[in-house]
């Protein structure tokens, strides 16, 4: 198949195709692309939400990198959050997925239950629940007290608050877990049987069969979770409101406050674009690294 022929085929789809797509296309153009372009325009102005924007060129970006003290601080908190959340959540999701990949009676019930936290995950209600559980007089400290341990105030102590939020994010591992589970199901039983005939143990099987065959899915989950973690907002907003002493003041929290409590929509738009570029770079890095560790069966075993 020559390249031009392929191109023509790809773009000359029947009108009906575009018409069927149009609800999505119109939605995308009006509700996603439009606001994205607007936000880029705003990032070059001093728009304040309450008054009309004035053109200021790159001044907002200059201020972010040169003058803003909060920017590096909130960036550091966000990176700590992402670097801890992503691996913990993936390891946790994979372990649970492997547990749920067995043939035990009533397994579908367990799967549903384990997935449950993710269904209600980012909602305000769970955040409030979390706030109460981890409060000074909350459930966790009651349990610890039962064992004679004096618990801390997990969400109002600057040393622990961020880790409590990380724990909450890790706990919502369900979506990654489901995808891992689907991946595990696709791995052919034959491989395990053949290797066990050759005398491979469980650990060996995991390292030489499961991990390589699962690596495309690990990549997908890593990218997905990384993007989600960078954009974490609800939990920080509801559980700790960025405090105490800005210890959970993640990037999007800063962005929100800049836009809606300080009315600096222009500056907040610039912050949003910096975040977008940052996520883009990290994702690109992940994809670049994937050629060294992701294994695609369809490519005849080439990495």
């Amino acid at each position: 198949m020559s390249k031009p022929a392929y191109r023509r085929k790809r773009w000359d789809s029947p009108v009906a195709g575009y018409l069927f797509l149009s609800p999505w296309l119109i939605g995308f153009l009006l509700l996603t692309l439009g606001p994205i372009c607007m936000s880029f325009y705003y990032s070059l102005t001093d728009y304040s939400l309450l008054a009309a924007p004035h053109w200021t060129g790159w001044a907002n970006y200059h201020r972010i990198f040169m003058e803003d003290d909060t920017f590096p601080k909130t960036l550091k908190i966000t990176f700590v959050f992402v670097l801890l959340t992503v691996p913990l959540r993936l390891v946790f999701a994979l372990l649970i997925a492997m547990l749920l990949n067995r043939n035990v009676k009533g397994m579908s019930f367990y799967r549903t239950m384990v997935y449950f936290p993710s269904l209600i995950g980012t909602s305000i209600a769970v955040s409030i629940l979390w706030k109460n559980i981890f409060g000074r007089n909350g459930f966790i400290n009651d349990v610890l007290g039962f064992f004679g341990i004096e618990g801390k105030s997990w969400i109002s102590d600057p040393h622990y608050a961020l880790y409590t939020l990380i724990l909450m994010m890790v706990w919502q591992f369900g979506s990654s877990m489901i995808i891992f589970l689907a991946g595990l199901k696709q791995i052919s039983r034959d491989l395990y049987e053949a290797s066990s005939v050759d005398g491979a143990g469980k650990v060996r099987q995991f390292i030489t069969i499961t991990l390589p065959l699962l690596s495309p899915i690990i990549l997908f989950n890593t990218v997905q979770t990384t993007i989600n973690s960078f954009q974490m907002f609800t939990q920080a907003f509801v559980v700790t409101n960025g405090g105490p002493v800005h210890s959970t003041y993640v990037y999007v929290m800063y962005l929100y406050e800049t836009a809606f409590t300080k009315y600096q929509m222009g500056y907040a738009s610039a912050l949003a674009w910096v975040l977008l570029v940052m996520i883009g770079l990290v994702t690109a890095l992940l994809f670049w690294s994937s050629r060294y560790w992701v294994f695609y069966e369809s490519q005849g075993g080439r990495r």
Partner: protein
Amino acid sequence: MAFVARKWSVALALTMLAGVMAACGSNSNDGNGASSASPSSPASSSASSSASPAASSSEPVKLTIAWWGSQERHDATQKALEQYTALHPNVTFETQFSGWDGYFDKLAVQYSAGSAPDIIQMDAAYVNDYVGRGLLADIGSINTADVDPSLIASGKVNGTLYAMPLGVAALGMVYDKTVVDKLGLTPPSFEWTWDDYFAFGEAAKAKLGKDKYVFEDQSADLVDYTAYQYSMGKGYIYNDQGKLAIDKDTWLQYMTKMSELRDKGILTPADLTATDKELDPQLDNVVNGNAIARHLFSNQVGAIDALKPDTYGYAALPKGTEAGGWLKPGMFWSVNAQSKHTEEAKAFIDWFINDVDAGKTLGLTRGTPVSSKVVEALTPNFSEADKTSIDFINKVAPDAQQFINDPQGWGNFKNEYKTIVEEIQFGQTTPEQAYDKLMKKAAEFEAAAAQ
């Protein structure tokens, strides 16, 4: 065959598209009607309604009204709105009420979308910000004959009335009377001084033991330092040019003293302070028994009394060379300058503050009513909590400090202030370092306000 199938699929797609578009269209119409100030009958266009804006017109009008507050206030306000609709059947209301958290965030977004409510409950911290941007309408034509002129002045900017004060509140303190009596302490009074305050702290702590504290640590609340600077005779924290005027020595003295009290366990420790939520049944440290006293506005007496009846006593903020507390308009009604129903909105506010029946329904849910006529009519029916609240105001009033609205651009400074003082509370910084940080932030606000 293939051709026919394709034709059919095009037709099907078109039908679906039409359906979706129609759904979108009707949705957005509903949305407009519900959220913005467009007239309720689409036939009578905005031109006709703005052409006859008289309050007496019988044309159907839907006013959007927003306020924040507690359940008590929500119930009373909704009842008052029903009352108004009964009197003026052409006026109906769409209500947007919530707690304080996020109220002004939402309002800013509504303004930028052109869908802000017609009638808006305003706070003193934001009056200048909103008026400075031309977002509030002149409401000077409302009858204010029975309202104290000095109170009306608090809603004026450069001589024009933009915000109608709705109630007076005094800043003072609340303490847990049952605990104070049980421990046999001299209770705080309306005449106590800072020396009495410190002595009370020491005495109470000695009897309370390790896990209970005397005062909720509110040093991160700019209100507390404002009162301290006033009481030390150093004046208001903003000067006449609308710039921050925190007296360095007084501030350091205050913060150092507060750190000392914190170390002694007289103030609540930082992690406990961080979970405090004023007037929350579980999270308010005075209500849940972790501490004995905190500052309180007199219009909150009803709310705290409802949480634990007959438990609390009230006092003034400690005095230094002068008094610390002040009287402040609790909140205001403002009219959206973009509203199409300014006249109807003004007529409603007029009724809200001047009508005796409205006053009876509303009670003291927004502080003591501003109209002397309404107060007079209400007095015979006051509840115990109402009487306490009035008594509170009367005792603070004689030497109360002047209340001034936050200057334009400084409405959010208290958030930055809180974060900086929290660092002292958690022992991450010294008062001197915190002062430098504070001044740096203040310079940023000054620069932004100057633009």
